[in-house]
């Protein structure tokens, strides 16, 4: 009898709880839906992803085909963005180039995020000697202005898109490590982590089941924002001749080729640059939207 009452009471509490508190995810979805620009940005990014997968089926011309009868043509109905010094269709090249920029941006930041998160968790959770070593190394990496570090790494490894990915991954790692470390330090002292510890949960379980999910929203926001800046850095490196090499349709490289024709053939630099700009802009707008939707302090 008594037990039944207790159970009923508990059930009622649960129901109330569900009515009052939406799940964090549905709360996030609700807030994110209000971010019009972030939604537009996600649609654009989705389009880019689709183009990077099926680009070669939708482009009007072969991106690598030389057409000496039509070199350096301005934008027209035949060639939306004009043609380059070999008569290649710039519109098609930009579409095919989507794959490269997205791949480089996503892969380098993902490597940086995974490595940085692992290091940050270890550093924050275990503290002590490991923590000082990891933080010292990240201090040193922070002592080099971003692009300079990347250029240094390229100078050692040699030019090429693969080395650009490594360079960008290395210099995005310490930021993730710091962000995750500070959240870990905070959560380590929380009641639920202490409770889990007292119940005999292993370190791995505490780290992955209790601390990592708590750090996730910070990681996601920073991850999205870093993709934009990594695409910028990678294309800068290609522009400087350290990344993708001709005849790759990489956007930064196309810009660097177009430089020689800047006076009369502005379209050769304008369109690849616009592609970089819009892509980076979308990732930044998405990052802003995610931040506003995930930040519990920003409730109206």
């Amino acid at each position, binding site marked *: 009898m008594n037990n039944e009452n207790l159970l009923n009471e508990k059930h009622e509490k649960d129901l109330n709880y569900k009515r009052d508190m939406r799940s964090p995810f549905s709360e996030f979805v609700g807030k994110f839906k209000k971010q019009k620009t972030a939604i537009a940005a996600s649609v654009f990014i989705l389009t880019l992803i689709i183009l990077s997968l099926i680009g070669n089926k939708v482009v009007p011309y072969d991106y690598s085909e030389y057409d000496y009868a039509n070199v350096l043509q301005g934008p027209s109905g035949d060639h939306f963005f004009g043609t380059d010094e070999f008569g290649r269709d710039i519109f098609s090249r930009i579409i095919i180039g989507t794959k490269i920029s997205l791949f480089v941006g996503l892969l380098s930041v993902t490597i940086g995020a995974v490595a940085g998160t692992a290091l940050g968790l270890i550093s924050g959770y275990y503290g002590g000697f490991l923590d000082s070593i990891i933080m010292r190394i990240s201090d*040193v990496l922070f*002592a080099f202005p971003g*692009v300079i570090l990347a250029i240094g790494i390229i100078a050692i490894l040699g030019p090429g898109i693969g080395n650009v990915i490594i360079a960008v991954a290395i210099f995005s790692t310490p930021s993730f490590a710091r962000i995750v470390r500070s959240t870990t330090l905070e959560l380590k002292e929380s009641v639920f982590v202490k409770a889990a510890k007292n119940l005999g949960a292993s370190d791995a379980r505490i780290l992955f089941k209790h601390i990592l999910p708590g750090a996730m929203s910070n990681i996601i926001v920073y991850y999205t924002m870093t993709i934009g800046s990594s695409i910028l850095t990678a294309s800068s490196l290609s522009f400087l001749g350290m990344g993708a090499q001709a005849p790759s349709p990489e956007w930064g490289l196309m810009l660097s080729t177009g430089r020689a024709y800047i006076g009369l053939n502005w379209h050769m*630099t304008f369109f*690849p640059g616009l592609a970089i700009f819009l892509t980076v*802009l979308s990732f930044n707008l998405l990052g802003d939207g995610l931040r506003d939707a995930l930040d519990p302090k920003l409730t109206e």
Partner: protein
Amino acid sequence: MFRYFLKRTLAVIPTILIVSVFVFMFVRFIPGDPARRVAGPDATLEDVENIRETLGLNKSIPEQYKDYMLGLMKGDMGTSLKTQRPVTYEIGQRYMNTVRLTVVSLLWSVIAGVLIGVFSGKNRSKWQDYTGMTLAVSGISVPSFWLGLMLISVFAVNLKWFPTVGSEGLKSLVLPSITLGASVAAIIARFTRSSIIEILKEDYIRTARAKGLRENKVVWKHVFRNSMIAVVTVVGLQFGFLLGGSVVTESVFAFPGLGSLLIDSVNFRDYPMIQSLILIFSLHFVVINLVIDLLYAGLNPEIQMQ
């Protein structure tokens, strides 16, 4: 206060030492035989041995480090493989150009960034805010080399208002500093805005309004001055961004500074030069961040208390 200054200053020394080890190890990180790599594919065996000798690669690593550090103390950073002149001479030739470019860029971007940030922040969710923040997010996203080339195309090639390349006179600084400062201005604007919004929520602002101060006075005297404390730290971080950005911007404008020298050196595999430039860039960055930290401590009474 003095103790804080001293502690913070001394803390930089280990960082600088580790940075110097990193930069020293730089040539030794090259996979395979560094001398061979530096000499290039067409070099003879003799050339390779010469380079090994010049770079001191035939000695043991600790010995090499000792030589390197002793050289640095005497202001000797080695010899450029490209020009055969001392690295310090080559850097000295271009140093002031980069300083001029970064300082001008920083100046305009701080002024523009703070102004945009203040107007956006105090007119939150109004058209001024939307315009300012649209500008700011665009500034962060725009590839500087594209912005630079578009500015060249419009203002130098077509309108002929400014020279396309070079570093002669003030006019030649206009387009490069716009290019270099754009993203910094944007970041400062965003930061100033959120700082202003935070401060507007403070009790003392309500008090200031309650006692009947004019809105302009509230914003510029109370909100602005307090928000600047936080903005100072961002400016320090942005300096590193400017140093890095100078590499790209200088290449776009063929501006004879340290950034374009770095790119030339990488293309020429001039490792002593690359090494020294990276060291100089990071030393500046570390020292400027130290100065900003100290400035911040000087400005913020809360830190002085601790």
